């Protein structure tokens, strides 16, 4: 059953969020069968807000965002659903729009930065060259002007001596500086949406802190919507306004950052939060774990995809978890979870020692 944005629990929000994704499904036919990478995912993002998408590898978090950017190969991918950008000029559904329209939006309306800044920069062209190329796509100007704009942008993202470093090649930059250069390139046309796919996973914690701060500052400066794809719940706690938790291609929980962290309504989210050690609390004992491993996207378990690993599955009457996929339902205002148990049922199970 399709879930409409209005039913999504966010009804007190303005009707037209900047980006509305509705029933997005992405699948890849392979020799072994159909890989259902993203299944019926709906969410929305507002300008100036940060939505974090959390999940393990293979949960569909990157795949859904590559679809929004129009970066899947249409020949080997089945995409259905809508991804509507509500622009001043009117709404555009990038999944239905002609390729030419989407191409013109890339960089200008939406932009993306990737995990590995080395492989997303071209090693043969100078940093300045690559950044000004992005700007020249949308601006009818000379090379000199473009270079000046690139220097300005490099300066803005905190590259010291930008006018000197603009002619450097990617290999002359450190990992953190490359990611800054990527951000400069992504933001040079003032996009309204920045999708950051694991932007700091390849970086050290000290550099990670710098980059996250930079993204936050840039968001304020340009009033952008940011979609942050990550598996690091620490970063999510730091920057997110809303969180989508994905598991095996589906949204399993969605809500405000505090709701999801302090009152998580899905056993997977609870397990995830319990399994990460924290630097601010020392207990030394065993870490709590989620048993087993994520399922294959070709042969999903019947019923709820998480049920084989779920500590609460035995507490649902009549093997419902093994037979019926739960709907994404509102457990509290603005807080959705895909679980047969209600928030209070989970609470009382926890009191009995389940999932501890």
């Amino acid at each position, binding site marked *: 059953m399709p879930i409409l944005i209005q039913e999504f629990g966010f009804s007190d929000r303005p009707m037209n969020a900047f980006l509305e994704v509705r029933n997005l499904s992405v699948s890849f036919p392979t020799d072994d069968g159909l890989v259902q990478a993203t299944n019926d995912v709906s969410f929305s993002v507002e300008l100036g807000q940060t939505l974090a998408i959390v999940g*393990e590898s293979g949960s569909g978090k990157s795949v859904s965002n590559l679809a929004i950017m129009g970066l899947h190969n249409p020949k080997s991918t089945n995409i259905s659903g809508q991804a509507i950008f509500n622009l001043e000029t009117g709404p555009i559904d990038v999944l239905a729009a002609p390729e030419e329209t989407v191409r013109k939006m890339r960089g200008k309306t939406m932009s993306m930065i990737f995990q590995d800044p080395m492989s997303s920069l071209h090693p043969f062209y100078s940093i300045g060259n690559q950044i000004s190329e992005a700007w020249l796509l949308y601006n009818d100007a000379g090379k000199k002007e473009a270079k000046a704009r690139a220097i300005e942008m490099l300066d803005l993202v905190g590259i010291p001596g930008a006018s000197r470093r603009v002619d450097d090649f990617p290999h002359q930059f450190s990992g953190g500086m490359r990611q800054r250069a990527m951000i400069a390139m992504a933001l040079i046309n003032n996009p309204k949406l920045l999708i950051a796919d694991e932007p700091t996973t390849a970086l050290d914690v000290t550099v990670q802190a710098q980059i996250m701060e930079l993204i936050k500052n840039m968001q304020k400066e340009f009033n952008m919507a940011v979609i942050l794809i990550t598996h690091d719940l620490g970063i999510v706690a730091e920057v997110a306004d809303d969180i989508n938790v994905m598991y095996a291609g589906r949204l399993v929980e969605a809500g405000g950052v505090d709701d999801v962290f302090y009152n998580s309504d899905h056993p997977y989210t609870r397990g995830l939060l319990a399994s990460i050690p924290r*630097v601010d609390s020392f207990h030394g004992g065993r870490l709590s774990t989620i048993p087993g491993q*994520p399922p294959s996207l070709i042969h999903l378990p019947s019923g709820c995809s998480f049920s084989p690993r779920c500590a609460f599955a035995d507490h649902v009457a009549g093997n419902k978890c093994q037979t019926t996929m739960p709907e994404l339902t509102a457990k509290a205002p603005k807080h959705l979870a895909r679980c047969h148990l209600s928030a209070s049922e989970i609470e009382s199970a926890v009191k009995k020692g389940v999932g501890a």
Partner: protein
Amino acid sequence: MATPILKVVGLKKYFLSSGGFTGRNKQTIKAVDGVDFEIYPGETVGLVGESGCGKTTVGRTILKLYEPTEGNIIFEGQDIAHATKDEIYEIRSKMQMIFQDPYASLNPRHTVGEIIGSPLSIHTKMTKDEIKKEVQSLLAKVGLNPEHINRFPHEFSGGQRQRIGIARAIALRPKLIVADEPVSALDVSIQAQVVNLLDDLQDEFGLAYLFVAHDLSVVQHISDRVIVMYLGKIMEVAKTESLFKEPRHPYTKALLSAVPIPDPKLERNRERITLQGDLPSPASPPSGCVFNTRCWKAKDICRTTAPELLTVGSSTVACHFPE
């Protein structure tokens, strides 16, 4: 106090860079520049620092995968720093390694049985049948199905592969395992499983671990003591609890404050020390204290004199102005 199983004294490892295209710009990279520490039996020592600080090189040098430039590596009372190949052969069975990338560290053409069995067939006189039995019991120990002995690495997930690497490392019942970022390539829910496994194996076999990692929250969970490295040198050594509660070195403090905590309310009110700039090149480290270029407490003495590792409270710190 017990005798350390491993004592490292003044360890240095310099690499000579190739000098680029023309070969003219040869530089000495001081990856590890005078490091002293010891590891006691059954202890887990965490080794942390940013990439390029030399932590992996330390791990590899004490296993003699790299020839040390200078210094002593005393393993069970014997200095192996300049030991011959034959001498190392003996010692290898007592020191093993777990690698970061479970995809690259297992031979894709070998079955799990061959991978885990190869240290046994090299170092022991066990028969084929005995080896097979032992491999099956090892598989069970690391939480894999013993019936999967004839499968190939590609049939396993990342977490399972890491378990295979661990089974291989413990096959000879070593005394010390160098684990180089053993969980950083794994998903969050799988990380906890592998960390617990390492914990259990330590209890069972009395293993000592040198746990090299950049993820401070995992290091804090698993380690008894932690060594913080920066640019080839040790900045601070302390018991885990005191290091995380009362970091003495400004670098340790900055490193800890950069780690995000999965707690939104706490994060909102947290004061963060953001270090400026990047790690300087280990080819030309700053004079004096190597951290002085990024340190907010640096004074003139820091630029001229390298601080000694001295005991401050419950920590050992190399800083002129410890907290």
